[in-house]
């Protein structure tokens, strides 16, 4: 009965606080949308300046979405590149070909370099074969076919880490709001006041888990549905599994948020946990390759709840795995939640020994 009263009170408080409500339900959607727009933006065609270019090659470059600007004579190539906003310059002098890259954005520079090199080597190969009299027919087709286990040739980087983002936003917003919720109860003295009533510590923790858990549940469902139906994120596996994973993620975030709030004495100190607890989780969630990290760092990654959440979400949403394939991740996440909940019970001892 006391738990019901506590849950009712928490929900009433949250629904009175329109800003927090907006942060819980609207902010994640806003950020996800923005991320989606940013990552799915069209790639800009690189601009390449050319002197003495072979028309055959220029045509091929154009086919590869490279904007080619023909220059007659250039005295200072570096200046030309910088002044005309070129991404690179291809200079052909007799037998020698030089590619000068601006390289202010390594991604553009690398892809431009690769494309130019490819076209060049193909062209020289072709010429070589023609000179020895072979049919060029064979080479005009691609000599290699590519097939994909996950995704397709249309797969973009965002497709592989959008599942991680969904999990991250559920984690982040639930962590923040539940943590600050219990914190304000500490700072206003109401938690201490509660301890002068016959309520048990377990009832307080349960009440908070249920109260904020209900909010987290609604939030999770909204985020998942929005991500899949509105933002059209890749979903190969079952949506129910996605929701299940996110609910468990929310539970971990909830219990961690309440727990850490007992080590903060103000809202500002709660926010200080973000760079300490939240940001490192992003690094180890799989957005950056974990295999490439030092061994000790990989061990560290395995201590992060989001590592397991990201693995499970990516598994279901991108790779189409079923529940049995991700169950070990879910068990580990549940274990995190249980540990945090038990620690919460001990943390409340600070207020009443019973």
């Amino acid at each position: 009965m006391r738990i019901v009263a506590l849950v009712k009170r928490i929900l009433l408080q949250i629904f009175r606080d329109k800003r927090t409500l907006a942060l819980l339900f609207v902010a994640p959607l806003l950020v996800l949308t923005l991320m989606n727009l940013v990552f799915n933006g069209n790639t800009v065609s690189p601009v390449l300046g050319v002197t003495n270019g072979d028309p055959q090659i220029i045509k091929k470059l154009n086919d590869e979405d490279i904007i080619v600007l023909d220059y007659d004579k250039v005295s200072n190539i570096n200046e030309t590149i910088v002044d005309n906003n070129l991404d690179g310059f291809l200079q052909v002098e007799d037998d020698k070909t030089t590619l000068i890259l601006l390289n202010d954005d390594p991604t553009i520079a690398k892809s431009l370099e690769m494309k130019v090199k490819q076209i060049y080597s193909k062209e020289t190969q072709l010429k070589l074969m023609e000179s020895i009299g072979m049919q060029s027919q064979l080479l005009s087709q691609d000599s290699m076919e590519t097939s994909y286990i996950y995704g397709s040739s249309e797969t973009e980087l965002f497709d592989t880490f959008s599942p991680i983002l969904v999990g991250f936003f559920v984690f982040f917003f639930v962590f923040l709001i539940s943590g600050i919720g219990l914190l304000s109860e500490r700072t206003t003295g109401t938690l201490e006041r509660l301890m002068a009533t016959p309520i048990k510590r377990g009832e307080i923790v349960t009440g908070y888990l249920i109260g904020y858990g209900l909010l987290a549940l609604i939030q999770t469902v909204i985020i998942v549905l929005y991500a899949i139906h509105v933002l059209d994120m890749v979903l190969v596996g079952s949506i129910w599994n996605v929701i299940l994973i996110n609910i468990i993620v929310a539970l971990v975030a909830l219990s961690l948020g309440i727990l850490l709030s007992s080590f903060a004495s103000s809202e500002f100190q709660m926010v200080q946990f973000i760079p300490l607890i939240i940001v490192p989780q992003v690094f180890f969630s799989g957005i950056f390759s974990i295999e490439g990290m030092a061994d000790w760092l990989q061990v560290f990654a395995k201590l992060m709840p989001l590592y397991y959440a990201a693995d499970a979400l990516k598994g279901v949403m991108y790779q189409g795995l079923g529940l049995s394939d991700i169950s070990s991740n879910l068990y580990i996440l549940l274990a995190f939640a249980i540990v945090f909940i038990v620690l919460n019970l001990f943390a409340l001892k600070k207020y009443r020994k019973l």
Partner: protein
Amino acid sequence: MEETTTIQVQAVTKSFGKKVVLKDINFDIKEGRIYGFIGPSGAGKTTLVKMMVGMDIPDKGSIYLLGEKMPNLNILQQIGYMAQSDALYTALTGKENLMFFASLFKLDKSEKQKRIAYAAELVNLTADLNKRVAAYSGGMKRRLSLAIALIQNPQILILDEPTVGIDPELRLSIWNELVRLKNEEGKTIIVTTHIMDEAEKCDYIAMVRDGSLIATGTPRQLKDQYAVNSLDEVFLGAGRQAQ
């Protein structure tokens, strides 16, 4: 008439870190009286009161309420506690605050409604019950805190500086009600204050200074003992003796 002891404090010592807040405190509180703990800020009044409620435990010694050693969850049903700072949910209305605290105690539905109406009436908040606490004045918040302390009709009332920020008229009516609760319902009431005026209204006074009880007795006894006319002078006299 046989008097029952409601609260027993036995050889209680408490320190926070190296600072000793209370040293070897001993006293009994009898049923149906108003006890006043008087002393300057930092004397240890609040710490003592919190240990009675069971929110803190003594380093040495023990405290018994209604025969049970504190802390004890069941006894909390019988204690109405009002903290020094107003611990209220400001996003909720006065009524919702009362309702929430009422739900934490074992009260049936009709009794809950009756107690809420009674407690609100007592502190003169009936008209403002549906306003959010955020819009309350300091005095109104104090009164709501007092109403919450009374909500479950407890046998013992422990009030930490209950009348701070309350205007004289309301203060008088609150004291009248405390006296009525004592006389008609036999409640035991413990009040901490640093206003000597209020101390005069207590049946029994314990003066606290630097963690020790420097003087105890009825206001009359204390004044006679130090041969002075006001409790202010008793306090100063007792303080000098203690040094």
